[in-house]
């Protein structure tokens, strides 16, 4: 692949990240409640103490110097200390990444598979009852607020049927015979949030896939393939699908980048201990260092996901290359 083009996109990605850092930095300077005002709330701190704290945190420096300090700390992995947990932000975030990645990863895989199947079937049987049914279901799921879907699932499975636990990742206070039993407990807790997340994502994938496949099926080479006598299944598999997958790649990559933002609703409703509920708690408790850290992580993840999807798309679709991207 063209090295210069990759380099150029990488530079753009880094410029965007730089602006994200700048944005993040200023955003949180504007927030009410910097550390000094927080500590002086009790009225017990003397002006000298306040001045010392200011100096300690570098808050007496001009803003551009503060920004450099911020960047320097960032490169050393120092994201500040969380007000709530009294631990370094990086540690707090680190502990919550895995639950979110697991939840989102599994849900994404299911959503993509089901969404693709729905989309293809819908497009192939366009206008018929099956298409209307699948399309209506997809549109319905797409229009539904994810958290409300979660509330309904809780109502059905936890309150009425009483088969699944309402919240959390493990049953509190329970002791386990072995690791396998503990894993089973976690999986039981994971089923409902995962179903909720998957259903929420199917709508978007199915509708996009359907549109794309409809576009592809109207192309001349499909008519040619059918005229040549290939079976419907063969035409779908070998001619239509590969071309229809292209926009899906972009969609998948972008959704993967939404690791943090995507799961906020589901994690909050089901109290799943991941990055989403962490951001929610940080917000509710006005824990600014933590909020800043999670926000930064989520934006950087998206920028890189976009960058990767850009590269991937170019590798897969030669037309983009020759047109100069």
């Amino acid at each position, binding site marked *: 692949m063209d090295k210069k083009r990759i380099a150029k996109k990488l530079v753009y990605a880094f410029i965007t990240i730089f602006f994200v850092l700048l944005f993040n930095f200023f955003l949180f300077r504007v927030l009410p409640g910097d550390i000094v005002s927080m500590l002086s709330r009790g009225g017990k701190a003397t002006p000298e103490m306040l001045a010392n704290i200011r100096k300690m945190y570098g808050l007496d420096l001009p803003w551009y110097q503060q920004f450099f300090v911020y960047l320097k700390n960032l490169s050393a992995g120092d994201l500040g200390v969380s007000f709530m947990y009294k631990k370094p932000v990086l540690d707090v975030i680190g502990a919550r990444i895995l639950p979110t990645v697991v939840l989102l990863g599994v849900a994404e895989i299911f959503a993509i598979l089901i969404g693709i199947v729905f989309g293809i079937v819908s497009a192939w049987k366009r206008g018929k009852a099956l298409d209307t049914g699948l399309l209506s279901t997809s549109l*319905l799921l797409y229009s539904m607020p994810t958290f409300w879907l979660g509330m309904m699932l809780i109502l059905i499975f936890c309150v009425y049927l009483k088969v699944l636990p309402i919240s959390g990742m493990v049953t509190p206070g329970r002791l386990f015979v072995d690791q396998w039993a503990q894993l089973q407990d976690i999986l039981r807790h994971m089923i409902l949030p995962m179903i909720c997340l998957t259903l929420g994502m199917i709508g978007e994938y199915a509708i996009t896939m359907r549109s794309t496949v409809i576009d592809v099926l109207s192309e001349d080479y499909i008519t040619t393939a059918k005229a040549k006598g290939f079976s419907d299944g063969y035409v779908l598999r070998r001619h239509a699908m590969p071309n229809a997958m292209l926009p899906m790649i972009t969609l998948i990559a972008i959704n993967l980048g939404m690791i943090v933002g995507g799961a906020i609703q589901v994690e909050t409703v089901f109290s799943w201990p991941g990055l989403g509920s962490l951001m929610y708690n940080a917000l509710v408790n006005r824990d600014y260092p933590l909020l800043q850290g999670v926000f930064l992580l989520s934006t950087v993840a998206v920028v890189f996901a976009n960058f990767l999807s850009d590269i991937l798309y170019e590798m897969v679709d030669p037309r983009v290359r020759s047109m100069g991207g």
Partner: protein
Amino acid sequence: MREFLDQVKANKMALTGTIVLAFFVLTAIIGPFFFPFDVMEFGNVEDILQPPGPGHILGTDDMGRDVLGYLIAGSRVSLLVGALATLLCMVIGTVIGIVAGYSGKAVDNILMRITDFFLVIPWLPLMMVLAAILGTSIWNIILVIGVTSWAGTARVVRAQTLSVRERQFVERTVSIGAGSGHIMLYHILPNVFPLVFASTILVAAAAITSETTLSFLGMGDPAHASWGMMLHYAFETGATSTGAWWYFLPPGICVVAVVLAFTLMGYAFDEILNPKLKER
């Protein structure tokens, strides 16, 4: 114009969407006269979370108030916030899109970098953070939604502006000495308008979803009942775990209905206005 309206009438999706929407707007306007409701008032303590029964068709909420009244009052707020946020979003997006598309070169570049920036940042975290900074009054919510959602529209409008700009009548207008502002306002804007209209509808759907989600997460305005706030209180006071379905099912259904109506209309208008889609 008449041809457009005929096509709209013939398209079942657009028709369904319009009817549903009209129903909700009507209830929002007239409803509160038949079912008065004040979100700042308390109800009877004995009436907390009662299932549907005589006197309360949809039961009562966690404060003993009538859920149907709450629902209708909430429709006003949800629809109004959705409409105003959409307006703000469309104004920003269209202005930036036209200016970027018409001016070209440096101005275009800068504006597009800013647009890309807003496209990249995940919307929910950004809205949450802005709401935390600005506070949760209803005007701030409208501002937050409007200011974070314009990027997609700007992109689409800019693309359309680029194509309109190349048309002959623009060149002729320039040659007789018309200024850029005049051209952008009186010539470019009317021609990108159909696209803007279709885009507006989809933005409206997203705006209502955003307001509902933000309110649910606790960033709504407590003084104004919206469907999202109903869901927030339903969740917070444990309506889900106690099975008080009448409290959170109706507002959710309303949100889905309205968003679905907008989505159907949006896709239908897209089909009507986009000639390439029609041929398929």
